[in-house]
């Protein structure tokens, strides 16, 4: 690297000046190290969230059965209005996904960030409170959203991902002249520093468009509510209604508006009929009610439009009169609507089906590898120096967080299969198990004498937990890999996915353990091991 710095111009290819190279290098290294672990967690959870719908179906038997015979779209709403607390003014109503399971509604308790969800059985007239939310918890944690922290942690995630974007851009700048050469240059037979560096560059360069798009769209999605609320006063003169009408497509949770005096809405079937007349080809999947029971109430009829990829079409109708208020489809959308549709469609992979999601999964895992190897390159470059507290801490945090999040997710899924559905507090218990295992892993890594031992132990634990999942799934559903009932493709695929993940994790654990044993031979003990594993030596140095 120093030779590159010393020769700003080599051959025909222009190079960065020494000053620019050093500055970009520093920014790349520091932005990467500072943001790496949180962004890694977001990337890893994102790789699972790609399969949110199959996992959500796998975890909840109410999503797996054939849908009830629904005589009308209004009927399930009538059920919930008869049997539960009064519906709030704003709520979401979801139809059975892909022709399986029950319809359900969800809403935030007014004035809070606490989400409530109910399954609706129009046939028996039952309203069943949502029982299992492990997939939803992973989805929310992907952008660091939690009811307890509200939006602030999400905004912090948005800022951190922006820092990650900075690391990507500066990484491209410092490697610009060698970008193509580094595309395929992976030399596992070389020294660890070269190995990690090659892996970092191959995964980073191949995944560059993926990481750029996800960092950019992720930042925009995470910060959109904040940017929207900040823009209301200076851009829209404080007029919230105008702001919602102009740029509301960018955010999910609109500010509370005054929807006027009480007034009965038209039946949902009639409202949906008018939406379909406005947009032929619209296939309604969900509905967003705002100002329910008021004269100015609206219903967003959402769903894919036949022949169009990237995002749903949205038709907003006035609930009281049935008048179509706005249409957001590829042909008739506003500029803001088009931006929102592309941002959301790209980030949530609303194209390509299962094939695109599997390819994205590979890229997401490669993104995780890029992030972690960045930290290992940082540590390897400093291996010849005396071990510092910062580097030992970074090595241990990288192991604790890197493997800890995997075992924590596996523990969450096992808990979701073991806890009885009748327990009302099962959601909270699952959250606590996830947090306990995650922070426990970090603590254990911080106290462990060897980061390699941390890695293989946690990976093996995660592999064993995942291996148990298809067996434990039998407690709740006969539709899985080992079940005797008619197989459900999603449940089957998720069960198979857990076993595939288990095999990969156990293999990785075995390889790391083999490596640890080899390096624990006295002759092979290196200064690098001291840097990675040398808390004791650090203490000795402090004592001296």
């Amino acid at each position, binding site marked *: 690297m120093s030779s590159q710095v010393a020769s700003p111009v080599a051959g025909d290819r222009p190079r960065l000046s020494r000053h620019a190279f050093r500055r970009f290098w520093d920014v790349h290294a520091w932005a990467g190290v500072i943001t790496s672990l949180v962004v890694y967690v977001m990337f890893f959870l994102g790789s699972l969230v790609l399969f949110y719908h199959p996992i959500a179906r796998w975890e909840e038997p109410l999503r797996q059965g054939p849908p009830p015979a629904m005589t009308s779209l209004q009927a399930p709403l009538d059920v919930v209005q008869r049997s539960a607390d009064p519906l709030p003014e704003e709520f979401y109503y979801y139809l059975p996904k892909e022709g399986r399971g029950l319809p359900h509604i969800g809403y935030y308790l007014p004035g809070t960030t606490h989400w409530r969800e109910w399954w609706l059985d129009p046939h028996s007239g039952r309203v069943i409170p949502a029982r299992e939310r492990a997939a939803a918890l992973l989805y929310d944690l992907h952008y660091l959203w939690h009811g307890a922290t509200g939006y602030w942690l999400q905004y912090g995630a948005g800022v951190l991902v922006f820092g990650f974007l900075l690391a990507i851009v500066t990484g491209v700048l410092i490697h610009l002249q060698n970008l193509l050469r580094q595309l*395929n240059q992976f030399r596992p*037979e070389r020294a660890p520093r070269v190995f990690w560096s090659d892996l970092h560059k*191959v995964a980073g360069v*191949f995944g560059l468009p993926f990481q750029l798009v996800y960092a950019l769209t992720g930042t925009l999605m995470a910060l959109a509510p904040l940017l929207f609320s900040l823009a209301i006063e200076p851009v829209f003169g404080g007029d919230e209604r105008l702001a919602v009408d102009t740029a509301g497509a960018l955010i999910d949770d609109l500010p509370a508006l005054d929807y006027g005096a009480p007034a009965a809405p038209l039946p949902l079937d009639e409202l949906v009929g008018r939406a379909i007349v406005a947009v032929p080809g619209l296939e309604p999947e969900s509905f967003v009610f705002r100002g329910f029971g008021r004269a100015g109430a609206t219903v967003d009829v959402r769903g894919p439009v036949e022949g169009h990829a990237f995002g749903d079409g949205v038709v907003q109708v006035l609930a009281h009169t049935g008048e179509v208020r706005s249409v957001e489809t590829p042909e008739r959308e506003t500029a803001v609507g088009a931006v929102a549709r592309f941002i959301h469609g790209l980030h949530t992979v609303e194209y390509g089906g299962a094939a695109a999601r599997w*390819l994205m999964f*590979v890229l997401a895992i490669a993104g995780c590898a890029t992030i972690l190897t960045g930290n290992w390159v940082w540590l390897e470059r400093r291996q010849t120096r005396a071990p510092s507290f910062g580097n030992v801490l970074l090595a241990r945090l990288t192991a604790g967080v890197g493997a800890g999040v995997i075992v924590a997710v596996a523990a969450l899924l096992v808990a979701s299969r073991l806890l009885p559905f009748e327990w009302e507090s099962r959601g909270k218990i699952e959250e606590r198990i996830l947090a306990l295992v995650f922070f426990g892993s970090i603590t254990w890594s911080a106290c462990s004498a060897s980061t390699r031992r941390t890695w293989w132990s946690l990976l093996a634990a995660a592999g064993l937990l995942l291996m148990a999942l298809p067996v434990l799934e039998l407690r709740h559903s006969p539709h899985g890999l080992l079940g005797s009932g008619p197989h459900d493709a999603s449940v089957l695929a998720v069960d198979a996915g857990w076993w595939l993940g288990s095999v990969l994790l156990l293999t990785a654990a075995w390889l790391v353990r083999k490596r640890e044993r080899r390096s624990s031979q006295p002759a092979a003990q290196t200064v690098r091991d001291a840097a990675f594993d040398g808390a004791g030596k650090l203490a000795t140095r402090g004592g001296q």
Partner: protein
Amino acid sequence: MTIAACLSLLYCSALLAFGADRAARRGARRWPLLSTPPRVWTARVLALGAALLGGALWARIEPGPASWFMVIVGLMAMGTLVALVAPFAPRLLWRAGAVSAALLVLLALAVVGGIG
């Protein structure tokens, strides 16, 4: 069937592009078929053709930008896998490439024969 054909084409494209790269023409990873300049350029042209054909095929399922996003995503993912697996199991990759090419021929025959 179209999905399988498109993924096979993208894999072949990534493999040919990798084989034509300087990094793939060293040591155990060397593929003698691609070791001379004319063959390297032929491989590059074939890789480009396979990627374009893959995009055109996917456009039959999803028209518009989605098909080209699919090509980009496919090349990124397959390229990563090929580059990272090649040093450990080069023969496995080339054999998978041969299987993909054979699969493409079968799929083409099936389409010509009116199946799918």
